[in-house]
């Protein structure tokens, strides 16, 4: 029995029904109830000074050599520094091809539905918001960092969207950063497609540092061909509401995906990561590691599903999520799921949740380290395991600095 519900203001604005708590994957994140305003899709006047200020405040400012900047969902050519776009300013970088698309929706048949034939609500939402985005095509070994940055400026509540496509050709390698940073009250919808060719290598770092009032809704759809390697790290610390979906599909053998992340949440922040790793072929390896720190009334959720298809023998899939709760009222929920149809696989999952170990704390204090500093050191050590997956030294150092600042301001 289903009850027809009156569309909410947000649903009317988006022209779709939003996922709600009676849907299994959304039980902890009732989007229908949480988005309590219309959030129209409107163009916002952009104040250049705000953009400059927010850009400069990014924890990753100045690290990437090339940037594609979007402000309130629109491409910002002035602040972007991509060789193919600005050939007169920077000599074209061999191996990076870039194109900007105004309305990216029509090309994305891969996103049209999952195996159950149901469109992912976050992709549907993104489509309804007519996203802009870039296609980055890496065709050789690119060592410079490329950043896709979205900036939201303070304005009336609205919804903005981005859809990016990253292709790493066979044998090529690249490192990309996706940064989300902003001010004000908005819905940010982002879809990122990752396509890794044979033997391709992609390091992807995402920083979610949206405004404290924002709603960040994102979806990653990745496919890995034979021998491809994906190494991802997401730091989630902004937004009032965060929902990050990811689907990673192995389509060629001997590929390897390392998906890691850290939460640094306080106040009433809510972050829900929902990942599906789909082993469709044999001999692939997946590793998921999430280290989540929650203070005050913050709530963190990690839902991870590993599917091993019937023919995907010799799959090696491991998943773990660990939470450190710094207050009595913080909360963490983990839902690990293994769906295994092959019979010769190594798969496992683990989830832990706890507060700071008093023995650790006493040991540090007995050496003269004051309590607050000892706690910070232990929290930094806790999330550090996930940060260690970031291979680029500059990016990792900047993220560690960010985490240390977060701990100090706590």
């Amino acid at each position, binding site marked *: 029995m289903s009850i027809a519900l009156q569309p909410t203001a947000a649903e009317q604005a988006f022209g779709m029904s939003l996922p709600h708590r009676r849907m299994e994957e959304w039980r902890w994140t009732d989007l229908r109830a949480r988005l309590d305003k219309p959030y129209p899709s409107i163009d916002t006047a952009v104040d250049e000074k705000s953009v400059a200020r927010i850009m400069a405040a990014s924890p990753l400012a100045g690290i990437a050599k090339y940037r594609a900047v979007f402000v309130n969902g629109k491409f910002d050519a002035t602040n972007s520094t991509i060789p193919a776009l600005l050939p007169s300013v920077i000599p074209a970088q061999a191996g990076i091809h870039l194109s900007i698309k105004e309305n990216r929706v029509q090309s994305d048949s891969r996103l049209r539905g999952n195996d159950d034939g149901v469109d992912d609500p976050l992709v549907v939402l993104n489509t309804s918001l007519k996203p802009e985005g870039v296609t980055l095509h890496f065709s050789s070994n690119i060592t410079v960092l490329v950043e896709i940055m979205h900036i939201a400026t303070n304005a009336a509540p609205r919804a903005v969207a981005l859809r990016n496509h990253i292709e790493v050709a066979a044998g090529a390698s690249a490192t990309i950063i996706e940064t989300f940073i902003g001010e004000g009250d908005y819905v940010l919808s982002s879809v990122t497609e990752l396509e890794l060719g044979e033997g391709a290598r992609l390091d992807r770092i995402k920083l979610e540092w949206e405004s404290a009032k924002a709603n960040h809704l994102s979806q990653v759809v990745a496919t890995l061909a034979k021998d491809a390697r994906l190494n991802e790290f997401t730091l989630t610390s902004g937004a009032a509401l965060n929902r990050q979906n990811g689907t990673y599909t192995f389509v060629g053998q001997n590929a390897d995906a390392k998906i890691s992340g850290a939460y640094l949440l306080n106040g009433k922040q809510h972050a829900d990561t929902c990942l599906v790793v789909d082993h469709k072929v044999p001999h692939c390896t997946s590793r998921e590691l999430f280290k989540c720190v929650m203070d005050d009334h913050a709530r963190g959720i990690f839902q991870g599903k590993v599917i091993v298809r019937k023919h995907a023998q010799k799959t090696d899939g491991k998943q773990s999520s660990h939470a450190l709760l710094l207050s009595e009222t913080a909360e963490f929920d983990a839902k690990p799921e293994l769906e295994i149809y092959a019979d010769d696989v190594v798969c496992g999952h683990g989830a832990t949740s706890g507060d700071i170990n*008093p*023995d*650790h704390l*006493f*040991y*540090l*204090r*007995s*050496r*003269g*380290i*004051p*309590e607050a*500093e*000892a706690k910070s*050191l*232990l929290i*930094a*050590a*806790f999330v*550090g*395991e996930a940060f260690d997956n970031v291979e680029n030294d500059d990016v990792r150092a900047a993220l560690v600095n960010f985490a240390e600042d977060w701990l100090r301001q706590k």
Partner: protein
Amino acid sequence: MLKIENLHVKLEDENREILKGLSLSVKPGEVHAIMGPNGSGKSTLSYVLAGRDGYEVTEGEAMFNGEDLLAMDPNTRAAKGVFLAFQYPIEIPGVATMQFLKVALNAQRKARGEKELSIPEFMRFVKDRAAKLNISQDMLKRPVNVGFSGGEKKRAEVLQMAVLEPSLCILDETDSGLDIDALKVVADGVNALRSPVRAMIVITHYQRLLDYIVPDFVHVLSAGKIVKSGGKELAHELEKNGYADYAEKVA
């Protein structure tokens, strides 16, 4: 330096008294051994002096250089010069040993109003001391005590002591889990720290350690009290006759 007077301590969780009127006076330069059977209160004494939670002092006092030691935070005690070498050193994943030493030393120096050491100064300072304890650079890079063998853990404790230069070292069962070679390295490290301005309390069940770290005084702890004190020869007497004599006395 340390004056413990009629100290009574019970566990916070259970209504059980562990120390029942312990008194001990330690002067700079002295090495005191505290020996006793299991359950006599040896570890409780070391934890209470270091400031671990979970113990309640119901009577008596412990003064350190004229100040009420028991009223201080564990970190304040450390900055004032108290160091406990743990029987079971704690593993701290994710914190490199070198970083830990630097943060601890600088926190203590800051608390004492001293200038923090620069990184090169600090590195020289630690490398020199680590070499003497046969501690490799690799070990210093590893997380504190994680994956260390029993001997490595105890050496790391002595290294911390050598770096932090406390005025009162409390060694809790430092010999436990060590073979004779490892014991010698640790004892050499401890002996190198003996000084007229530094006192040590060596807590042990066995006399063996005291062959290497020769004490000035030996105290027998039984059922929460010091029941006999003497010179180093007392340790040999205990080794021969066991603790049975003393257990009977308090019973």
